[in-house]
């Protein structure tokens, strides 16, 4: 038989003014099962809590109702007190007679009656409550960072700095990402390679970091603290451990391919490292172009390799790794430029993207920093930069602002003017967004010292006239048509989510928006968390951002990972679904509605091991206790602990007593 104690709080006069607390306590005392019922001025005070604790011990209470403020306020306080007195904390419920009663009503009689009802409902519930245990989940102290750009590198370094082993996963042959392609970076004009490559070396030399390049996530199973990642190592055909990166193979390779790293402006071989500072500086064979794979001939690289470490029969490998947490830092792509017919990209060789321009001016680029336009190697005397190509264009392309283009275009005008002192740089813009530390000052420098000429308006078309390009557009400030003869046109194309990110998000069970950017658990207050516990986000995978933002987010995500993995066990509330296996028919309704894929089928076998039937099985580590599964069960075989059908029906039935 239940022995319930009820504690009615005055909250000073906050409750007592509208609710006759004495009468409430006396009325409740008459309910069967209530063995103790008192009122007190401040239940949450130390003496108030002691009253609860003492009564639990003295009256051997099996359940407690504290009628006071909202459970959001003090449920933790009182449950802790109950636990200290030896009562299971889930056997304590709160009746909210302040926020839901005394503060919203004036009439004392009505307020008192309502308060009595609310307490009665909780008494009936707590009579049926079952003791629950918090769920303890063991934690694998290892993290996986997906994406080896600057964001992923920073996250890996910070996690390793906390003493946790990290796997840094990169699908390309080298880490470094887009930042390694940039020439100089705003607003300091420090050379991108000079600040990134030391970080790349640092991460490569860190004993806690395992870099896996040319590898992708195949599958992620498990849940927070206990993920099992299956990683696909693509066939590299080069034994990384034995290769010294001497370069004999790629110098001898006869096949020339447009280099992805050089944005198609330079060439690489079929066996290649993407750029000289690549980490690891070990080549890969590009099967799509290598003659050995396309025509089964050549084979020169394997013949001349002094270490004999090139193997054409190398196959892709699948490796399983246990990790406790995942950081997704998959970065971005530039919008496919085929979308911009009006600007003539692809049609005129001298219309390039901003990333191509970076390679054209970069000292490590295909021309070693000597700026030449692609068509005739001429030094461009007039360059037109077009901003918001694909961004801020809801009718045709992307509605969002790509955030970094204003600043990098200003930077590129400076880089251009530093190379061509008498050159003209024109920028077509819609608005200038320079909201970062020292950004506005930097932009001013581009306009004033380096004389970039800013024209507010859109470009309507670009066409070829003889050797020159003609850019026609509008100057909306002077309300005039503008026609500029240019040697080179640079398009600041929109940042978009990288290829394959949706598939990756589905593998990880995290959300993404209509653009393919990953969704944060809360855009303001949980910006580096995904809605799936244990998976964190950073950088341009979430939305366009610049290097400083990406790096700080990487550190933010790393601190979240370290916070999570600092414990040997995770503890979560015992409010989870549980299945009554004897009546479950295995219809899978619950599996279909569970937003967290916490339910799966479990085999029931006889002693001989024969499969008898399948039933639903809840993984308490993944279950968040939403209870969506419970009402979908046709046989009422899955119930949410802490909010069971029995408990809620008891609350409803308590109403019947009133009439």
């Amino acid at each position: 038989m239940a022995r319930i104690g009820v504690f009615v709080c005055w909250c000073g006069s906050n409750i007592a003014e509208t609710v006759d607390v004495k009468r409430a306590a006396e009325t409740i005392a008459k309910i069967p099962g209530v063995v103790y019922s008192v009122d007190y001025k401040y239940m949450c005070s130390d003496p108030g809590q002691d009253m609860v604790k003492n009564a639990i011990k003295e009256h051997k209470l099996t359940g407690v109702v504290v009628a006071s403020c909202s459970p959001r306020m003090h449920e933790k306080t009182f449950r802790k007190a109950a636990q200290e007195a030896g009562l299971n904390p889930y056997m304590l419920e709160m009746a909210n007679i302040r926020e839901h009663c005394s503060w919203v009503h004036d009439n004392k009689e009505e307020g008192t009656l309502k308060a009595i009802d609310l307490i009665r409902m909780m008494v009936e519930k707590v009579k049926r409550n079952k003791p629950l245990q918090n769920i303890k989940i063991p934690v694998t102290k290892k993290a996986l960072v997906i994406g080896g750009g600057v964001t992923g590198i920073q996250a890996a370094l910070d996690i390793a700095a906390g003493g946790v082993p990290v796997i840094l996963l990169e699908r390309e042959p080298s880490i470094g990402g887009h930042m390694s392609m940039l020439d100089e970076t705003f607003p300091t004009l420090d050379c991108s390679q000079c600040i990134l490559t030391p970080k790349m070396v640092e991460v490569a030399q860190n004993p806690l970091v395992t870099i896996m390049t040319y590898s992708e996530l195949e599958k992620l199973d498990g849940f927070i603290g206990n993920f099992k990642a299956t990683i696909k190592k693509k066939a590299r055909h080069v034994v990384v451990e034995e290769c010294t990166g001497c370069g004999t193979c790629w110098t001898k390779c006869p096949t020339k391919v447009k280099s992805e790293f050089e944005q198609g402006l330079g060439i690489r071989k079929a066996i290649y490292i993407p750029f000289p500072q690549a980490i690891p500086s070990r080549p890969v064979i590009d099967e799509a172009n290598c003659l050995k794979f396309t025509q089964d001939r050549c084979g020169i690289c394997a013949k001349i390799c002094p270490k004999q470490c090139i193997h054409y029969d190398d196959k892709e490998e699948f490796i399983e790794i246990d990790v406790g947490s995942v950081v997704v830092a998959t970065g971005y792509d530039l919008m496919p430029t085929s979308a911009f017919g009006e600007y003539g990209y692809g049609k005129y060789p001298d219309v390039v993207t901003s990333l191509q321009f970076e390679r054209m001016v970069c000292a490590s680029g295909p021309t070693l920093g000597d700026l030449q336009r692609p068509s005739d190697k001429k030094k461009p005397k007039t360059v037109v930069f077009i901003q918001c190509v694909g961004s801020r264009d809801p009718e045709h392309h992307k509605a969002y602002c790509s955030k970094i283009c204003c600043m990098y275009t200003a930077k590129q005008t400076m880089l251009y003017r530093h190379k061509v002192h008498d050159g003209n740089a024109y920028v077509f813009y819609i608005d200038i967004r320079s909201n970062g530390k020292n950004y506005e000052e930097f932009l001013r420098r581009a306009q004033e010292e380096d004389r970039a000429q800013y024209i507010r308006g859109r470009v309507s078309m670009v066409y070829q006239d003889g050797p020159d390009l003609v850019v026609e557009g509008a100057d909306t400030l002077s309300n005039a048509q503008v026609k500029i003869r240019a040697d080179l046109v640079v398009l600041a194309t929109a940042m978009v989510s990288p290829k394959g990110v949706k598939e990756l998000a589905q593998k990880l069970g995290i959300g993404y928006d209509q653009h393919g950017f990953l969704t944060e658990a809360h855009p303001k207050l949980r910006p580096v968390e995904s809605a799936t516990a244990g998976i964190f986000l950073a950088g341009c995978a979430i939305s366009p951002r610049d290097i400083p933002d990406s790096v700080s987010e990487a550190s933010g995500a790393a601190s979240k990972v370290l916070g999570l993995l600092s414990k040997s066990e995770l503890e979560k509330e015992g409010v989870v679904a549980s299945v009554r296996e004897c009546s479950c028919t295995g219809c899978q309704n619950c599996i279909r509605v569970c937003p967290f894929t916490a339910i799966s089928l479990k085999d029931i076998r006889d002693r001989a091991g024969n499969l008898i039937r399948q039933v639903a099985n809840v993984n308490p580590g993944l279950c968040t206790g939403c209870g969506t599964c419970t009402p979908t069960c046709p046989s009422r075989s899955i119930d949410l602990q802490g909010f069971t059908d029995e408990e809620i029906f008891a609350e409803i039935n308590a109403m019947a007593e009133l009439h």
Partner: protein
Amino acid sequence: MEEKWEPTIIAFVCNWCTYAGADLAGTSRFKYAPNVRVIKTPCTGRIDPMFVLSALERGADGVIISGCHPNDCHYNEGNFNARRKYIMFRALLTQLGVDLDRVTFAWCSASEGIKFAGLVNEVTEKIKKMGPYTEFKQLNQDAR
């Protein structure tokens, strides 16, 4: 014996939005009709149509179901499930002969204390005009 009849209204709310919204109504001291009794569930997805039928049977004259706005669900999609269920359930209610005005479904966020207060007042007024709900209760008593 001429006691004035007052309707009883049961509100099934989710913990994250409407319960918090009702708390906010309290902290903001928005006064509303004292006829409502709130039953907290973790999510509107947890609210079983049987709860509503049971409430009507046990003496409620009106029922409110309320949770997070679409896309605001703490559990991502519990409220979508609730909405889908409710649409089906309405058809069932009609078939059972329950006036649809007795059951109100409304979104109410944690910041909409004023909306919660307004919702309770509106439903209370509506139910007052409709009068007590007796059909299920009567059935229940007849069965005893």
